């Protein structure tokens, strides 16, 4: 099956496609959130060790995993834009960055709120938390660099390079922090030592899918804005229904 990918890589086509996709992802996010929250709070049983506090996991874990995953996707899009000079992929990269940064922040926030009752401290310098913090810094660096370059093409290419360097560095940073942590005999608290109840797993997966759909929906919305901003002089933009009225 030969799909003409290049057709979809033109901003004008993608603008329409994204517009059609947004409601689907938005609705599936809503439904999944309702289902996921129901399972997380009413079906999943109380944990023996952590009592009710473990329920933070249902938002914390999806936020952490997606914030890391989105960074990789962003770096991938940025690399595509840098190598093949496709403008849409650079636009996707800059549309993903704020969502990823917010999820990284959410992951830190929920991590702190989970850590306080479990470890007795809001913040523990464990490898995962520290890497998440650095991931947030990397997102902020990407956004700041993109925002401070006026020429959009230079902004795309420079921040793409930064994203790629960052994605190469994240594992190095993770292992160096982990190593540092073991040397200092820091708090090595395991999150979930015992096996998870089936309902807990189901809750977490549903929430993960919900956050995932949400992230796709909101970044598609954002990429539509970016396309409009960047293509404002193009003919097809002035022929759009929402512009003409």
């Amino acid at each position, binding site marked *: 099956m030969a799909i003409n990918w290049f057709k979809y890589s033109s901003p004008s086509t993608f603008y329409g496609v994204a517009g059609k996709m947004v409601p689907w992802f938005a609705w599936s996010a809503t439904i999944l959130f309702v289902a996921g929250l129901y399972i997380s709070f009413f079906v999943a049983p109380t944990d023996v060790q952590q009592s009710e506090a473990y329920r933070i996991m249902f938002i914390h874990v999806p936020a952490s995993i997606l914030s890391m995953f989105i960074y990789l996707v962003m770096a991938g899009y940025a690399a595509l834009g840098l190598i093949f000079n496709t*403008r849409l992929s650079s636009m996707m990269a800059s549309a993903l960055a704020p969502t990823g940064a917010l999820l990284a922040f959410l992951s830190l926030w929920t991590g702190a709120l989970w850590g306080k009752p479990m470890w007795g401290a809001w913040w523990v310098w464990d490898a995962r938390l520290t890497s998440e913090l650095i991931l947030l810094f990397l997102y902020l660096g990407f956004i700041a660099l993109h925002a401070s370059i006026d020429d959009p093409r230079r902004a795309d290419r420079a921040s793409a390079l930064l994203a790629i360097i960052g994605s190469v560095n994240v594992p190095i940073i993770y292992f160096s922090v982990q190593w540092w942590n073991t040397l200092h005999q820091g708090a090595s608290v395991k999150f979930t030592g015992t096996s998870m109840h089936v309902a807990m797993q189901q809750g977490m997966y549903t929430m993960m899918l919900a956050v995932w759909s949400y992230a796709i929906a909101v970044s598609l919305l954002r990429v539509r804005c970016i396309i409009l901003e960047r293509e404002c*002089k193009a003919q097809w933009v002035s022929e759009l229904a929402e512009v003409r009225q």
Partner: protein
Amino acid sequence: MLEISNLACSRGDHLLFSDLNFSLSAGDLLQVQGANGSGKTSLLRTLCGFMMPATGEIRWCGQNIRELGDAFYAEMVYLGHLNAIKDELNALENLRISAGLAGCKVDDKQVIAALRRMGLRGRETLPVKVLSQGQRRRVALTRLLLSNAPLWILDEPLTALDVGAVGLMQELIGEHLLNNGMVIYTTHQPLEVAGVATRWLALS
């Protein structure tokens, strides 16, 4: 020698010019014309490989300059808006370094002779920061004398120069063309080279 086909350039997301075709062979003098913002500097910077053309090709002796890379750079001199000279160094040191970077081995005698020809007698060892704007431009232009590259790409070479220096430039360009050189330049001042028909390239 230098062939440009279907060249289009964009600055940011904005297209400057497209479908540009011309070629330059030994002994040619080409003046690029156009209003402010028409892409004169961008064209010259694209020829130098700083900017990637949006479409089209630039070929030197039949080969794309992107593939040629260093081999192309060895055959050209570029003089931009900026003089590329260091205030802290004197004219002699500046030229020694820039000639060194361009890959030409020059001795001090040659540099001093070139500086004198450019009307900078007695200023060879003064720090450049005490020189006037026009004198600094002359120091920058001396680079042309020290290079034996056939292609000169000059962006507004005459800014800040007095009448005498403009005459000198015309003389230099004439000599270069006689030696089978090529010159492509932009200017807002008239530049007449005796015995050579200037070709025009208008960017709209």
